[in-house]
């Protein structure tokens, strides 16, 4: 292997993968088969769909963003704060209290949106 160098190893891996793919292709079902319209239709219990499935719906990603901000970004601010807390004293304490209060409103809103429930 060392004779071939790094490029040679890549080549061997590539050729090996190609051979495996070709064998699988040869073993697989190669008969030309096009799907009929009912075969392509999505399954929902046996009846054809009434409207197209391409639908824009509200996945409520903002709730996930809120959870992220409340529990992760909080830490981003807290670490540097913890470093200077002893030096700054009461001022830092008050600043953090304000920050946590604002975050808490977000957490309460998240709670109302049922994002903290299991299912």
């Amino acid at each position, binding site marked *: 292997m060392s004779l071939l160098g790094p490029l040679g190893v890549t080549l061997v891996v590539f050729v090996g993968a190609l051979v495996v793919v070709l064998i699988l292709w040869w*073993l697989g*079902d190669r008969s030309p*088969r096009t799907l*009929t*319209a*009912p*075969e392509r*239709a999505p*399954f*929902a*219990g*046996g*009846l*054809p*769909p*009434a*409207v*197209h*499935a*391409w*639908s*824009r*719906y*509200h*996945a*409520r990603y903002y709730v996930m963003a809120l959870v992220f901000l409340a529990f992760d970004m909080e830490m981003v601010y807290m670490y540097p704060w913890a470093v200077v807390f002893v030096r700054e004293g009461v001022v830092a304490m008050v600043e953090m209290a304000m920050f946590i209060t604002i975050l808490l409103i977000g957490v309460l809103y998240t709670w109302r949106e049922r994002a903290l429930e*299991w*299912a």
Partner: protein
Amino acid sequence: MRQFLARIAAGAPVPVFAIAGAGAREQVQDLRLNPGVRLVDSPREANVLLVAGAMPESLAEPLQRIHDAMSHPRCTVVAASPEGRDLHAWLPDATAVALHEPIAGGLVDVHRGILRGDRPSEPALLPDVEPAPWRGVGPFGQGGTGMTGGTPYGRPMADLLDDRDGLRLDILPLTVGPFFPRFPSGLILQATLAGDVVVESAIEANPFTDLDFEMVTPSPTLGPFLRALSAPVPIAELELARARSHLRWLADALVSQGLHALGVRVLALAARVRPGDGEEVRKLERLLRGTQVFRWSLGGVGPIAAERLIAIAAGPVARASGIAEDARADDPAYRELGFTPVTQRAGDAAARWRQRLAEAEQALDLAGRAGPRQTEVRGQVEGPRGLLLAEGAPTGRLYELVPELLAGLEWGDAIATIVSLDLDLEEAALAAQLTAGVPVA
């Protein structure tokens, strides 16, 4: 090499999409106990389509649609009594097996044959016709308004509706059923979804009402209750059938919650229980409490107020909302046994689960103490789903309640609510065809 791989593949559990028609619910359910068969939730995942029992003609096209939705290689097995010859007209390539013998062996044989290439994969049954052509405004069908330019295959794009966050977004009208694996066979739900929230819904008429039940053998858990309408039946037999019916329902309900292995255990218990085995159900209840399924998945889901259930006689569903109504309380033989109905108060899906567990336990205790006592014939009987009488079953009476229960629920909760009602369309259609006072064969 190909033969070798096919032989290995043929040894795997058979992926089966199973459809239970009238009189075959138990047989299909019992397939879960067989390690050689894997019941799957979508025909795309299956190699074998199993259609068991009797089917009304209105369900022929959905059956063929499901057949065509399977990927290749595919085959069909029909398990029906001799009168089920209609099924062969609708599914011409199907292999027939006897309904009242174990079906699993037939499924494994057919699957092995198709993987080894002994028999060809079945062709599509429905014609290759789009519901409508995809037409835009341009000369080649391109362009126009909307996201795709035109109407894709006659299926219009979704309509718009105001969202609760003040956005204007698409709503998706969705027809689920008649063979959606989580719903009782034949239930067709027309739901309008905004995201995953059910905005409104409607249920279509019971397709099994078109079926002639004179030729169908009622299932072993329903048979004793039908007989009790017109003849005295030993209480021990009736109560054992009730416990089994509740446990079988629980097995399906657990599968719908993703607890497959526990569902299989409950199904095995349903086959094994004997009169006086109340302790087994108590153990099961403790086990279920340990899974937290009551608190995390079912608590507060689909509550029904007691006033909505007055005069519906919906059995466990009504008793889970606190209505102590039970036809057994009027039977002198049950009064001798000291029977009083069990009730819950919450009225949500969790309460309905607990209610059925408590009733299964009570039924086994009653069966153990009943001795030779028999029921009194009064033309009505408290079935596992509520008051059963000629010309009426509880499912028919609960049917109208479903749309208002589902409004505003998330899709997962909507399924949990429907499952918790234990609807049985076959029982409803069968009861509607009974004439009061005529004995049931």
